[in-house]
């Protein structure tokens, strides 16, 4: 099963990663470290490369240069499902749920990695399949309790309100039992009340389950409030990496965000 590589070392190490789309440099020489159980954020103006970075880490994009290590093991080049099996889970900026499935089935898909029954077990509903399936359902139950999803257990996720859908996505990611959880703009489009709930949930997840959480982008006030550390990206480069109080006063960071506001005052951020 999952190995625990040297407890003290970093959990995730992004080393000199660059990502090129034709002429566009989405990421340039990015370095970043995540420690086990840490709650940190990657922020930056729109188009800074946050989503691209998450896509590299989860194997959806392949970096054009550099390496990514997880638990001491090189993961760039592995397929996304292999990376998920090693213990990295994520949510998407634009919700990517299995919209025709119920909440329960979405979370159960999160248990896919943990199924120890094969195709023929499923086809003939062997005892091994029943045992496995019941075990996954029990595990999903705990997650639904934790995220308060029981009331929508059998609802098709497409019919759920936006904030609830985001929560189902978090649940599906947690169901994989990751050691690292990447949340891409989790509070985007949420009401203030939902945002406040989300802060609690993220803290809960990080403290109770002891997993490392990386927030991408998102509501700046919220990020400042809950992050232990913040990495700032601007046009694909890391321009700051420190505790919130220091990052907040960094002139380079202020300039990056001001630049954006000057270009697009409506967007805020």
């Amino acid at each position, binding site marked *: 099963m999952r190995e625990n590589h040297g407890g003290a070392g970093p959990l995730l190490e992004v080393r000199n990663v660059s990502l090129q789309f034709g002429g566009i440099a989405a990421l340039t020489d990015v370095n970043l470290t995540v420690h086990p159980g840490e709650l940190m954020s990657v922020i930056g103006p729109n188009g800074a490369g946050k989503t691209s970075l998450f896509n590299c880490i989860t194997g959806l994009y392949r970096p054009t240069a550099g390496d990514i290590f997880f638990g001491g093991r090189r993961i760039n080049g592995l397929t996304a*499902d292999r990376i998920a099996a090693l213990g990295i889970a994520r949510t998407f900026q634009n919700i*990517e749920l299995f919209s025709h499935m119920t909440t329960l089935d979405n979370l159960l*898909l999160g248990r*896919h990695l943990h199924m120890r029954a094969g195709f023929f077990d499923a086809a003939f*509903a062997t005892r091994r399949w029943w045992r496995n399936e019941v075990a996954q359902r029990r595990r999903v139950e705990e997650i639904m309790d934790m995220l308060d999803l029981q009331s929508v257990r059998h609802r098709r996720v497409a019919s759920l309100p936006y904030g609830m859908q985001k929560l189902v996505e978090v649940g599906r990611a947690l169901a994989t039992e990751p050691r690292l959880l990447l949340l891409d703009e989790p509070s985007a489009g949420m009401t203030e009340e939902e945002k406040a709930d989300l802060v609690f949930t993220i803290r809960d997840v990080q403290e109770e389950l002891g997993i490392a959480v990386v927030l991408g982008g998102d509501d700046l006030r919220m990020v400042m409030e809950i992050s232990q550390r913040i990495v700032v990206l601007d046009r694909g480069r890391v321009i700051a990496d420190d505790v919130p109080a220091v990052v907040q006063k960094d002139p380079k960071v202020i300039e990056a965000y001001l630049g954006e506001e000057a270009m697009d005052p409506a967007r805020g951020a």
Partner: protein
Amino acid sequence: MTQLIQRYEEEMALVRGGAAWTGLVLLLGALAALPWLLPGYYVYILNFVGINVIVAIGLNLLVGYTGQISLGHVGFVAIGAYAATHFIRATEASGVVAALGGPFWMAVFIGGAAAAVFGVLVGLPAIRLEGPYLTIVTLGFGLAVQQILINWPAVSGGRIGMFVPQPALGSFVLGSDRSLYYLVWTVVIGMSLVAFNLTRSHVGRAFIAIRDSDIAAEVTGVNLKYYKTLAFAVSAFYAGAAGALLAYVMQYLEPTMFNLYESIYYLAMVVVGGLGTIPGAMFGAVLLTLLQYGLSHAQEYLPVIYGGIVILVMALEPMGLYGRWLKIKLWMKTWPM
């Protein structure tokens, strides 16, 4: 805890509640009694209905569940039919396998397995190709199979075609339409059960997940290469097994039987019945096959009529007939309020 487990097992059960069990028993009883109530020609037609139900269920696993459209399913049916027929002829000639209690059930399995091998081959490009490009590959496959059969008399018997020996178990010959009916519908029931099992399991969830969001499926741990190919293999197995049964029922094969229209009809069954549900595939296959024989004196209009039905159903009820049925059921449940 035991209560929870019971609740899970209830959620996981295929047939839930007394009414559902009663309905199922009645349906199975009716299926068993039909060949004794209907004249022979209708039994013969019901054999084709059963065969098409099998193809449609398999095709729905690919199209409705995984979201990969096949316009070449007739190719898998043909491969199953010819593989089974050659197997039967070879065993008859040698007399070895008959001692094992074969070969008809083995022939059905071999038809399915041979088609599944080709399913894997056709499915492999699915990893790279998406949407219309993949559909064109399947279209090309279906056409190629027919062309190869036409031009390869050693396999297809050429212009004369090929006769299929009757299914037998030792000295017991299943020659009549009625005994073929029981063979066909036993396979229908068995393969339906497997399909229901698959769709309620992690395999079915992975199929739907790939259709709804392949990137989310991937980062949640679903091996896209494996499951996309698996969907093709399983779907082709259903078509191939149906092909073997078709060989038995027709008792004669020639390449012209396996033309592009058949592939389109299979797809129409799935669409009309309801994409992404097993009962939907069954509904569609039963309806369109009966229609095909009901209109047997107007064969040339069949494509037009099928096309019209597909357009009508798509316009009025995109979830297919089964989707409409579910809505009616829901409506009746809530009606008094």
